[in-house]
């Protein structure tokens, strides 16, 4: 047999695609790190990267911009992989932690910590956000379930309803909190990477790393879940175990991200579709591709959020929603036309 120009998935060869994605991510992070009110000449940029440095440009770079770029990478990557997992779990290409109300639940969990336990970047924050995310995901699944199964549209509808309810709870919590208890609450609610300090990156990193690795280990199971639960079972998958693990891991990813950077929508919806177009539906390639693409996408969105308005920064969630909402409508119409 002659070697084939395309991979097993009938897509472009994965090697170059991953090199390209890695390059795009590095470029977007470099762009992010060199964008801002303080100009950093390329030489000082490299110098600060390689040797550290004491000057103002080096301090800005190392303690503000790079942490922010890394936070963007972690948040974007985590949201995108969480979206991939929810989409496989629900066999629904419209699923996304934000649309499903999972992010809202995470926000309530995180706010509870901030209000009653401690403010700031507590390591507890992602954990409680995870519980909030898991509970709201469970609520949406149970509400959407009928004897005949879960229809995609009904699931989205329940996600919107639960999300709206949780938003009201969030507003109540923010309004009733003592002044200064939750600094930057409004920005946080709309999704913001401005809180990217080295400490927050360090708090988030273990959660995201654990979540992404776990999902990657589940990737063959996720492939089989796309067949439908019955067929997956008959092909030898312990369906319930894989579903539970996926649901918990995806909630962990979405929850921990919300705890640090608030409600950033649609990354988990757009990026998986883009990544599928590049590497196909096999999760062993799709998950890493979605992580890289999600990181690059959010870091770039953040650059746009910082530079679009002359009078100040936009929340990055506003930028992703501007791109994501029309895309969601497009998918919904395409899906509706088929079934």
């Amino acid at each position, binding site marked *: 047999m002659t070697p084939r120009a*395309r991979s*097993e*998935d*009938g897509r472009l060869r994965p090697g170059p695609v991953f090199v390209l994605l890695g390059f795009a991510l590095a470029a977007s992070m470099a762009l992010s790190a060199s964008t801002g009110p303080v100009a950093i000449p390329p030489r000082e940029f490299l110098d600060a990267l390689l040797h550290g440095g004491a000057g103002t440009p080096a301090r800005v770079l190392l303690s503000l911009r790079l942490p922010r770029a890394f936070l963007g990478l972690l948040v974007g990557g985590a949201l995108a992989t969480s979206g991939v997992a929810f*989409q496989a779990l629900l*066999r*629904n*290409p419209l699923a996304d932690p934000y649309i499903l109300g999972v992010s809202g639940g995470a926000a309530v969990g995180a706010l509870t910590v901030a209000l009653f336990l401690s403010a700031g970047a507590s390591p507890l924050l992602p954990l409680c956000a995870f519980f909030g995310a898991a509970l709201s995901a469970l609520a949406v699944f149970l509400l959407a379930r009928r004897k005949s199964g879960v229809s995609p549209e009904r699931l989205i509808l329940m996600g919107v309803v639960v999300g709206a309810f949780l938003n009201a709870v969030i507003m109540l919590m923010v309004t009733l909190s003592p002044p200064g208890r939750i600094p930057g609450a409004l920005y946080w609610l709309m999704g913001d990477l401005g809180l990217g300090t080295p400490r927050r990156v360090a708090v988030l990193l273990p959660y995201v790393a654990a979540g992404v690795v776990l999902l990657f*280990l589940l*990737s*063959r*199971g996720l*492939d*089989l879940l*796309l*067949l*439908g639960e*019955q*067929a997956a*079972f*008959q*092909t*030898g*998958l*312990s369906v319930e175990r894989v579903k539970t693990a996926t649901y918990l891991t995806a909630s962990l990813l979405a929850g921990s991200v919300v705890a640090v950077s608030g409600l950033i929508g649609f990354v988990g919806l757009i990026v998986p579709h883009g990544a*599928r*177009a590049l590497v*196909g*539906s*096999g999760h*062993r390639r799709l998950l890493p591709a979605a992580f890289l693409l999600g990181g690059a996408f959010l870091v770039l969105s953040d650059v746009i959020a910082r530079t679009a308005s002359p009078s100040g920064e936009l929340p990055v969630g506003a930028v992703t929603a501007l791109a994501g909402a029309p895309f969601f409508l497009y998918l919904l119409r395409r*899906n509706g036309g*088929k079934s």
Partner: protein
Amino acid sequence: MNPLLSARKVSFGYGAGDVLRDVSIDLHPGEVTILLGPNGSGKSTLIRILSGVLPSRAGEVLLCGRPPRGYPRREMARLLSVVGQDPPVDFPMTVESFVALGRFPHQGFFGETTPEDRERVRQALAETDLYGLRDRTLSTISAGERQRATVARAIAQGARVMLLDEPTAFLDIRHRVAFYEIVTRMKEACGIAALVASHDLSLCAEYGERIILLAEGTVASQGTPVEVLTPGNVQAAYGLAVSCDRNPATGAIRVTPLRGMPAKNR
């Protein structure tokens, strides 16, 4: 020879009523058994019970001596494969990667593909006349081609017991015949035991060693095609008047619905 899969007096109901009552069947190696019965007679439910998706309410199912629900999942999937639901079309999956999922029970949990896996997938694609379509996505091929892909996935799974739920429903006549030829080859070459739920009365008689006729959840008749496919049995199960004769070319039973004979209500 011992049956590979046997059911003894299996009963099942989703709610209060019975969907299946006292169904007993044996699937022997090297035999194709055809499961006939009108829509709603319990064929799909029986396949779900035999494959361990549903627990039976009463009775016993034994796959190679053990109840299917007692097996570890992968071990079970190496023994028994099922062709059922339509494959997914919401996600862009190619025919080849879809068929390759059938190798899951033979692989490590992370699905490292071995040369044997690739060879089995290639064979399954070739058997089902899909090799040329292997790089197409499932949503861009026809319903019949998707159905053949589902059969190919089960072939790649390489189990000795195959349960097939109306695997020919969307196929044209050539591919219908091709399907029965494939099953026959696998029966002769690998000694598989196949249970094929079907509505092809005459084709079944050509290819099936045994026929089980289900009606309203019970076995109305079972045996060789000659024993089961009689005008009386078909009339009782389907409420349809037919004539049964021998096909002069093959000698197999041929069932022909009769024109102008009002179908009697059961």
